């Protein structure tokens, strides 16, 4: 009985990593630092950055087309949407819409291509408030030159 139990434990210990590693890998190919959750930004060009957990990782960027209501490839400023990335990555994309942009990042290795890590973000592009120095504002008010 004891022998059977030990054999069972050994079989489980050997088999578990075989099933678990691809599962874990598929969910943790990259660690994304930007976007930092859903963000509100003022600039049209936005950087997607992160660190890869698995070697030989690939990433793809998509955006949700509002008219077609489906995800389409999102080209970076370099003109590509799919990359093989090194240990760290940083890519610039141009946001498609003023207001909400739904962005999808797909990351995988050759082993996990059919079960990629998928991250969805909403990046809201808003207009930048013009910063005005309070002193200038006050002086302009006094001099009656408020448009300055």
């Amino acid at each position: 009985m004891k022998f059977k139990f030990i054999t069972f434990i050994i079989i489980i210990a050997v088999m578990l990593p075989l099933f678990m590693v691809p599962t874990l890998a598929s969910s943790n190919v990259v660690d994304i630092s930007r976007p930092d959750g859903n963000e509100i930004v003022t600039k049209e060009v936005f950087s997607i950055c992160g660190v890869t957990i698995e070697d030989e990782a690939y990433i793809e960027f998509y955006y949700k087309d509002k008219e077609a209501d489906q995800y389409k490839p999102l080209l970076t400023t370099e003109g590509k949407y799919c990359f093989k990335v090194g240990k760290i990555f940083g890519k610039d994309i141009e946001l498609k819409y003023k207001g909400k942009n739904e962005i999808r990042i797909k990351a995988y290795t050759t082993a996990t291509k059919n079960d990629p890590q998928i991250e969805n973000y909403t990046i809201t592009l808003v207009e930048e408030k013009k910063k005005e120095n309070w002193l200038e504002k006050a002086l302009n008010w006094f001099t009656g030159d408020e448009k300055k």
Partner: protein
Amino acid sequence: MNSKSKNIKFYYEKVKAILLVCLIILCIVQIGILWSNQSYSSPISLFSNSNSKNSSPVSIDDTKGEYLLPYRIAISTGFDGEHYVIPNGSKEYTTLWNGARQYIDQALETKPQKIQPFNEDDWGTLVANKPYTFEFKTQIPIDIIKWTLNMEDSEGEGLSGIYKLVICPDDSDNSYADTLYVRDDKNIYIYSINSAKNDILSYSVFNEIYTKQKSDINSKSYQMAIEKYRKFEISKDLLSVFSGKRQDSYPDFICEPISGLDKEEYSYDDFYDMALDLFGNARIDYDFDVDVNGSVVFKKADGVYRLYKNSILEYKYTGNQTNIEELNVLEAYKKALSYLLESRSQNDIMSNITVYLSSIDIKQGSYIFNFDYSISLGEENGEVPILLKDYKIPNSDNQLLSNGISIEASSKKVISFKWLALKFYVDNNIENYEWSFVDMYSKMYDKYSELKNEFSAKDFGIYYVLKYPQMQENIITPSFVLFTKDGVYDILMEANK
């Protein structure tokens, strides 16, 4: 007969007196010549008084400011905005540093309004959001700051030193007061300046400098680590190219050792030429020889210099050994700086080099001041730094020289001095390099197995790296250098084809 002999004796005595006067005059002239040579050449001479300005041909009071320059001055338009590094040595660099000096002087007259423990995220956010940042290579003790900036002894109470500074005129986070944020290793000190004596760092000056940087084809905007990699182990105020790529031009450098150093045997002329290269007119103070290891030795009354084959010049004090002296960082720094000025005045080896204080180590009774080299590329083009890597000091149990200059000094004297005695020339060949932090890090990741662990970066830079003994003329090209918590890693940059 008697009167004749008296006359002869009188004239004889007269001639003797004139001869004696001539001899005395000659003696005085001779002493003058020796005195001028001695005081001109000797760093720690028997006769020279180190406190006296006349002992050094370059006055320490006139030049002390050149040895406490910020290694990096950056301007920022805000978080996720543009960040420019102002070229060291440029007109804008001088303007901004002069402004910052006045801010420091004014702020340190008062106590800090608030002290908060240093935190990477808070500091990174400050640097990204506020307009001006000034960085030294290491934390400079407050006594050295006060002495260099001619501040009162009573100023800077409670502050141990300055490592980095952020200045924000009309700071909206501080009731629109002009604000100075000072960072040392432990805390961030916040000072308010309610009545700024000048407007050197006003927003109009900022706009002027920003517009110039933006329109200059040679200057490109950087990104800040906090904007891209906040959650990872990286210095959050690190400026680099994190997304996209960048094209930069860098010249090759020629480094040339002291003439004749590569020879197997040295003639008198070789010794003479080497002494002339190193000590200039003061060469006559030194006796030269070769030691058992083949290093050239220059001896003088109270010290010995050794010029090793790999171009390291080492000085050791051999005079009276005194008891362990009381530690005083300012006095030790003054000794080290006087010595450095004296050495630089004797030769033109460091004529195109700016030195930055990069670290201060404490020993028993003394301090070691380490200075790094940066070579000027011309006023508007800034400087490029030199990095010594795995550069061994011969006869020293595999000790490494990691800085261009290393001076050990107590409050009374200079104990030892190590110096990379190489001449650097900017070559006519200029290459273009396309790079980004991401690409270079990935290349390093493939090259160094130590980087296979988690991602970490303390600092990075484009350096000219010296790794091998420099005995003959060499051409060096730029490398990407990464500083992590575990070590320093470098990789040669590849020029565009």
